[in-house]
């Protein structure tokens, strides 16, 4: 594991902002602009062939959205987490859906619920929510019951029966 991080560090100097270790898991905090390069290197040269998950977290006080990739090598059973902090005003990161097929829907989910843009994604649409939904529910400021408009939303076709 240590040499993976070392090679990444030597290959992409300055890309790794921080290395966090907790409960035996390593997290590399990577600059947003270089995530794709680092992940591509991990896949092609280090054998991390399995993308387990893409997730995200919103930190309103820090004004950032984290996008988290969990990659794994099925051969050596190593697992690594890549986290990248994106600014809240403009959360954009390059897609990795061409590296792993898994990323396609996972990125769409993050886009739908968290509002992160993935440049280069072939088909970035909402996946969980209807197309006419506004906002991104997993952001902290979004109320759980939906905002005022959406809370009492009834699909147009079904409306008249309510009267």
């Amino acid at each position, binding site marked *: 594991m240590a040499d993976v991080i070392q090679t990444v560090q030597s290959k992409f100097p300055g890309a790794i902002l921080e290395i966090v270790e907790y409960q035996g898991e390593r997290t590399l905090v990577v600059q947003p602009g270089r995530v794709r390069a680092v992940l591509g290197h991990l896949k092609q040269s280090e054998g991390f062939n399995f*993308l387990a998950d893409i997730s995200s977290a919103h930190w309103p006080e820090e004004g950032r959205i984290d996008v988290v990739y969990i990659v794994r090598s099925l051969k050596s*059973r190593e697992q690594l987490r890549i986290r990248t902090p994106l600014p809240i005003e403009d959360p954009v990161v390059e897609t990795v859906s061409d590296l792993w097929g898994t990323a396609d829907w996972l990125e769409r989910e993050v886009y739908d619920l968290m509002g992160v843009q993935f440049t280069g994604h072939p088909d970035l649409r909402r996946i969980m929510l*209807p197309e006419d939904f506004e906002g991104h529910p*997993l952001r902290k400021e979004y109320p759980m019951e939906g905002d005022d408009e959406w809370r009492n939303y009834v699909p147009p076709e079904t409306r008249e029966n309510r009267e």
Partner: protein
Amino acid sequence: MTEMNRERLDLNTDVITVNMGPQHPSTHGVLRVVLKLDGEVVLSAVPDVGYLHRGIEKIAENKTLHQVIPYTDRMDYLSPMSNNIGLAMAVEKLIGFQITERCRVMRVICMELARLASHLLWLATDALDVGAGTVYFYAFTEREKIYDIFEKMSGARFTVSYGRIGGLARDWPEGLEREIETYVAQAHKTIDECDKLLTRNKIWIDRNQDVGVISAEKAIDMGLSGPPLRACGVEWDLRKAYPYLGYERYDFEIPVGEHGDCYDRYLIRMEEMRQSIRIVQQALKEMDRSIPLFPEDPESRKVFLPPKDRVLTKMEELIHQFIVATEGPKTPKGKEIYFAIEAPKGELGFYLVGSGTNVAHRCHFRAPSYINLQALPILIKGAMVADCVATIASLDPVMGECDR
């Protein structure tokens, strides 16, 4: 040639688009698949999910971690046990909590019974989708027996909410071990019976073999996990790869297929049920009632909810209950973990971020159904419409988990 015949020859066959769902295309929930067909051949398919998006992740960020457990039941509702025990283990990893040995054994038994129940339901619906109705009744009869056991454990037959952070909801009633033992001793009968009905059945073979094929490389690329991945010949099981709950002590095998088609997925699930029975039998031998279910040191008292019977009879347990329910296990702020279990459907992962309180800052579930379903277009490209149904059934997606 008559006028009519000539007209018929001139008939243009167009590519049409057919909408399957969202109302139960194949008894697996609210999945919608848009198929582009040339006659009966599927040119391409676009699954559309989200019809059961209930916002569980958002709710989980607004409730204490103890309160999230019932929601995990409703994710993969075919095997609630493995979900809520999985979440409990993820939280334990986040806060660094050690459960007792007996709890570990009990959890293994619960999770393997859940796998059995889930695969039985898959067997029922898969066979029903392909047109074999009998298996449905056989499998459900068997499932009801597992429900009876769950009911004795937790009080609910279906949405059990039995896992708890730091332990289990309550101890088993007296004599449940023997009951489980008698149950698993005869559980293989139904499986054998279904085996006889299906495995060498000509129709079953015709409808499943070489249908929905995916290669191992593609499967890894698409992130498949669980039986669909193993059916392609990849020996990957989290119980062996990253053993948790002491799975390394049990003697069981991972069935691996070679063709990556529906038939292999079927065979693998059948074999997994048998292996689950083996694990339960071994675990029952390790069950030792003299070990306490919950750890006794004062630090860990701040984590788990004391069992109800003790809360109602002892003062200090009542106080503990109050403190744990209101303050709960403190998650370390900003720390994150990813913990995955081998759920019946595949890799069920939990990505938790601590917030400093007993509410998770972020609670993301890696749903195996969601990611397995993503491979559907690859699996059914070039197949017939009827194969499409068989393929969806063999992937065994649960929409509650897929859409969360």
